[in-house]
């Protein structure tokens, strides 16, 4: 993988004349996890989609730039709450979808290694509808890793999973996406407390930094300082709304 860049987004956005968020500055340090917490509708996903270069339906006035000055296009991978697995492709087919869509020859060896790495080696030939929600998100994670992009944008990717699968895949993602520049948009204070190097609360007034334990991620689900940070985030999230 090439060296991950830092990313700075600066600007304001409105939808049909109504202010979505006022002028703010979000900096993602290179090779670090940044979490964005906030109520629905404050524009978290809009921020993420702006960085991914996707349509947002909002008018954005500002700039997004990588620290190394090169464009972000082609350096970003994206994972959403919906696993977006193609139902007509098996796990392997889904993992190599990116190469197929670009008309490249997929590296099957790497694909198989990644499928094994996310614990789906025995399911490589299975179709998505035969997998559990957790397995599907693992397949989606393997596909994201297959893209091997230095910047990874995660839009609530684990929010539809049960608590146990969620904790498992948080650890897996934290480990496999370490050293990349990651933006995690989430509703869940616990997730932000476990996975982030820095975390922000987003509301209509802008961003405010949230406290995190001094230890480095991924933090244990039941560590005292993780739980304390989670509780504090939860309190700030509720009082902000």
């Amino acid at each position, binding site marked *: 993988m090439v060296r991950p860049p830092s990313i700075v987004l600066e600007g304001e956005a409105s939808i049909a004349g109504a202010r979505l968020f006022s002028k703010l500055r979000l900096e993602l340090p290179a090779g670090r996890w940044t979490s964005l917490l906030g109520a629905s509708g404050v524009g978290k996903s809009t921020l993420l*989609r702006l960085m*991914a*270069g*996707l349509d947002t339906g909002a008018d954005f006035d500002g700039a997004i730039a990588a620290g190394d000055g090169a464009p972000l*296009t*082609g350096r*970003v*991978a*994206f994972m*959403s709450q*919906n696993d*977006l697995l*193609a*139902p*007509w492709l098996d796990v392997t087919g889904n993992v190599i*979808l*990116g190469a*197929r*869509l*670009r*008309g490249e020859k997929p590296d099957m060896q790497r694909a198989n290694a990644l499928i094994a790495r996310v614990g789906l080696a025995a399911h490589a030939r299975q*179709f*998505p*509808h035969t997998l559990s929600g957790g397995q599907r998100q693992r397949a989606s994670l393997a596909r994201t890793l297959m*893209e091997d992009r230095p910047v990874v944008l995660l839009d609530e990717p684990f929010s539809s999973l049960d608590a146990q699968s969620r904790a498992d895949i948080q650890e897996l993602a934290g480990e496999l996406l370490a050293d990349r520049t990651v933006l995690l948009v989430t509703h869940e204070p616990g997730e932000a407390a476990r996975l982030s190097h820095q975390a922000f609360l987003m509301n209509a007034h802008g961003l405010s930094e949230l406290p995190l334990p001094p230890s480095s991620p991924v933090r244990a689900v039941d560590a005292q300082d993780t739980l304390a940070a989670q509780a504090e985030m939860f309190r700030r999230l509720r009082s902000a709304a």
Partner: protein
Amino acid sequence: MNAIAGSFLRGAFALVFGLGLWQFVVWATGAPPFILPGPARVFSKLWEMRELIAENALVTITQIIIGMILGTALGVSTALQLAMSPLSRLLMRPLIVFAQAIPVFALAPVLTLWLGYGMASKILTVVLIIYFPVASAFYDGLMATPQGYLDLARVMGASPLRTIFRLRVPHAMPAFASGLRLAAVSAPFGAVIGEWVGASRGLGHLMLLANGRAQTDLMFAALIVLAAFTVALYFFIDRLGAWLTRRFAGPVG
């Protein structure tokens, strides 16, 4: 296997019930055979005239199958063309809807004038009749790919053409299957319309001929063969459609 046996059994019951109802109407109304022949009479006529009917059925079936293949190919390529280019959507869509607004019935005499009494004009009526359902169902399917998949493709750096063939087309398979089902039930219609307007062979021609000579039993026999073929065609296409849907959308659709 049991499910198939069960559906055959249900079909057999429905058939017996239908024939019984038919015979009952004949008895109850006391209609003479040249108005409404009973099932026994029609089936004995069918057997008696089997060579004539088979000969004409072969012509009609050939027209239907060739028309289905050409019409589907044309519908599919139109849908792809529309999905690929906003300009062709702008220019062609109104034209296609307008063309669909013209009843094929009204067009059939002109087609016969242009293409003659042979198979070509009937194949063309079949093509015209199934073209729109196939094109419109497939096009709707192509445009209904969930935005999330398109976003993913965009971030992955997919080319527009590959996005169509590797994402939109497989996603559209269930919709394409519905278009095919509609085509299967209306295609025989197209062939018969074509034959009614002017033909020297085919089941539609035979029906018209039998009707003109008050051979109602022969007309019914030809009608039953046509209906049986339509049901068989629908059954086959329905199976194909169910397979396509399962293959491309999974068991929940």
